[in-house]
């Protein structure tokens, strides 16, 4: 059909479009409409009001990529500050100004590994987010590279034997099951065969966890949504990308750098552009152009709001509430831990009832108990992944416990009756 299709309509007034979009929104169950323990890659954290107030300013919201630095110092300095914060958080010296989001950041890191050592294989932990693993596979096909999965044992990665055809070892911290990995050991194993170590990490737990840099990881990437960005049903958010000095000139994307103007005044520009598509074209280290500047800005504002001590306090609060939830939930008959590794904000349970039915029951009761692991892990068919952010209070956790207990019990009764 032509654009005069019903798909396009004839045009409507502002109030009518507002009402239409509000009606659509009303048919979604948001984290304000239920008590949600969903995580699995994106988390319901509180976004402070000042973040929205600042990023809604048209001076940040509406400009293009800062091609004219003299009239873009606001955005460029914010990028520089963002890079500093990410580099501080990851313990790695260089950070770019953002990539699209988490899983594609893992792919981008893989491409840097390819450019670096031109080897044939990636070894990726099964503890890496399923979306990241699938994204890497999609891209690796284009690079003619193989992707091998390293299994999880007792909740953490077992790299097994590595050889010198391994381009990079890719892990996640904490991993998809919420378990804290021994990053140093994994990075050492990779280094021994001359492979790069790529770690996808969750930025907030880094307030407590050893930084990837300390663990001698080469590239740290991750999903930035938890840093002051809305859930937005999955995007837009941003991906962060930090690496060792050695990889600086293979980094993808924009990088802001400090310089001086003709009068010696400090200023900022997009730098090292010879890596980029608009200069190097087919020889570029990446094809990325439009990235996620506004979301990354939200990220650095959020990190400034948290501050040096706040990020630790927030991580500790989650750690303690999560520990409470872990104990509380595993005291339910028929609910056991899927692994016993240390966790920060998220943990995995095994239900001895069909997860799907149990979840349905909880939803009916206004509680979204978490993510069913069975979707991505046949081996954890009735596994449940539960996330505890600072927005979930003890009362919420107790409510979850009661609801989950009732749901599991009810399901067992059904089974007995059926028998």
């Amino acid at each position: 059909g032509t654009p005069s299709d019903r798909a396009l309509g004839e045009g409507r007034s502002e109030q009518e479009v507002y009402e239409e979009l509000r009606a659509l929104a009303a048919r979604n169950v948001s984290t304000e409409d239920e008590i949600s323990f969903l995580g699995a890659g994106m988390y319901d954290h509180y976004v402070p009001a000042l973040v929205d107030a600042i990023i809604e300013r048209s001076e940040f919201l509406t400009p293009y990529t800062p091609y004219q630095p003299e009239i873009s110092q606001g955005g460029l300095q914010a990028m520089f500050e963002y890079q500093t914060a990410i580099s501080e958080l990851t313990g790695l010296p260089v950070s770019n100004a953002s990539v699209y989001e988490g899983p594609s950041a893992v792919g981008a890191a893989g491409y840097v590994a390819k450019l670096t050592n031109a080897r044939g294989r990636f070894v990726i932990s099964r503890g890496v987010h399923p979306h990241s693993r699938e994204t890497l596979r999609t891209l690796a096909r284009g690079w003619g590279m193989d992707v091998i999965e390293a299994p999880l044992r007792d909740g953490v990665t077992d790299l097994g034997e590595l050889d010198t055809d391994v381009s990079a070892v890719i892990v996640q911290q904490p991993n998809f099951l919420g378990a804290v990995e021994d990053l140093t050991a994994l990075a050492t194993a990779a280094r021994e065969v001359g492979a790069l170590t790529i770690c996808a990490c969750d930025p907030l737990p880094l307030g407590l966890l050893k930084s990837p840099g300390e663990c001698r990881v080469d590239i740290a990437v991750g999903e930035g949504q938890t840093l002051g960005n809305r859930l937005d049903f999955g995007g837009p958010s941003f991906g962060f990308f930090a690496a060792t000095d050695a990889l600086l000139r293979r980094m993808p994307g924009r990088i802001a750098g400090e310089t001086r103007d003709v009068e010696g005044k400090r200023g900022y520009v997009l730098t090292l552009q010879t890596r980029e598509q608009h200069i190097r074209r087919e020889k570029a280290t990446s094809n990325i152009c439009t990235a996620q500047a506004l979301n990354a800005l939200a990220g650095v504002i959020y990190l400034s709001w948290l501050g040096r001590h706040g990020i630790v306090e927030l991580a500790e609060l989650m750690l303690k509430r999560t520990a409470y939830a872990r104990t509380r939930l595993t005291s339910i008959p028929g609910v056991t831990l899927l692994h016993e590794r240390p966790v920060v904000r998220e943990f995995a349970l095994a239900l001895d009832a069909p997860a799907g039915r149990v979840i349905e029951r909880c939803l009916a009761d206004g509680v979204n108990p978490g993510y069913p692991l069975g979707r991505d892990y046949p081996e954890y068919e009735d596994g449940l992944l539960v996330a505890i952010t600072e927005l979930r209070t003890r009362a919420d956790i107790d409510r979850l416990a009661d609801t989950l207990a009732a749901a599991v019990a009810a399901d067992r009764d059904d089974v007995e009756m059926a028998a």
Partner: protein
Amino acid sequence: MRPLDASRPLDASHSDGASRRVALAANGFRAADDGLTIFERSKPGRRAFVAPELDVPDAPLDELLPAEFRRAEAPRLPEVAEPEIVRHYNRLSKRNFDLDTGFYPLGSCTMKHNPKLHERVAALPGHGKLHPLQHPARAQGALELMWNLQQALASIAGLPHVSLQPSAGSHGELAGVLLTRAYHEDRGETRTKVLTPDTAHGTNPATVTMGGYEIVKVGTDASGNVDLDDLRAKADRDVACLMLTNPSTLGLFETGIEEIAGIVHGVGATLYYDGANLNAIMGICRPGDMGFDIVHFNLHKTFTQPHGGGGPGAGPIAVSDRIEPYLPRPQVVRLDSDNGDRPRFDLDYDRPKSIGRLRGFQGNYGVFVRSYAYIRSLGAPGLREVSEIAVLNANYLLAKLRAAGVAKYLPAAYDRICMHEFVLSGAPMKRELEIRTLDLAKRMLDFGVHPPTVYFPLVVDEALMVEPTETETKETLDRFAEIVAEILREAREDPEVARNAPYTTPVRRLDEAAAARRPVIRQAL
């Protein structure tokens, strides 16, 4: 034009030397404070964050997280309170030029007005606070919106199938190249090359390499079209795809498009449409009808997602039937009910031939909300009007510049009716006035307009690429023409003026070479 003496802010300050100096001293105070980074404003003990109550039993850290996993010291994030954070970023914002402040004719970027309604609807909790893994039955509004947007984009592209997953144009391109690969491989063919015109945007060749293909450039003929002979010569059975922008990056409609499609399809290759310039043709013609197999959209250009200083965006793709089996996973599907209830929407993961995911979750939904609101506001007639006025504005401005005598120094690269944008060459200006396109651009900064895109496309010497968009008024276009004429006039008098511009910006010309030579890309803490 207003008399210039209605202006002179500093010049008219009473002429005594002392006062001039101290007037500047005052700026000194201001600049010294404005220049600080958020890290430089940090003071131990300050904070904005207050932790919520610890409402669970406390426990020693070591029990919950063994010391070997914990970091030695807290990350040195800034220590600042809310008032300083707000002031800091508020002041930074004032050092940005933005679309809501002035004209922004940045070629190839479609800097059209971003309606404020879009921010309002995207922020509704039902959209903004929806978890990406929410059960589809509990996200019906979101899935229906995505479905409707897919239909709308399909009908604009004239291609039946859409994936919203790619995060930006270049991500859409990558999807397109990987789809092409999957398509050929599925047919047992391995092809090695992808063709792009020498006018192509940098992301095209970069994408080709990332997709594992070798790039082959096709030339441009005297009239600005793809050189058909060169294309014929290079289009062989090793060619997997031709990536094209139409209108081209020269702002010209590719008149030979049907012949091009014939040649490309003749060798069994796919034809890829870089949709960055879609703003020129909506409702007038459709890439699908031109023979394109794969199209990407830049929702942050044509469909008004604000650019955010470098993103976010979204780069959905539309494809033909033969490409459909390979589309990324998951796809939004509609399940119509026979008993007349409203249809249900779901996510379909079961796509055996799919290239798989390109990213997490379902794409940049927040961007979809804005673009959908835009499409619903305009409807089919409005979208057609958008393209008509975009083209009209560009041709008006081109004519106006000619009338202002600019053509002598900045002739159109190709003397044809342009589409939504046009490319001028600054070569004569450089020769005769001894200022470069860069100088012209920098001088524009003093006049309060954003310069056009410069030095792209590469095939035009000293290129200046101007895209006014449909949301600008005649007064704004007239004013821009006057400004260009004025800058050329002053350059005739004294080229130094432009060469040393800008003068009135927060910082003046910055040393980019030094920045790259000794990169300082983080603050030393």
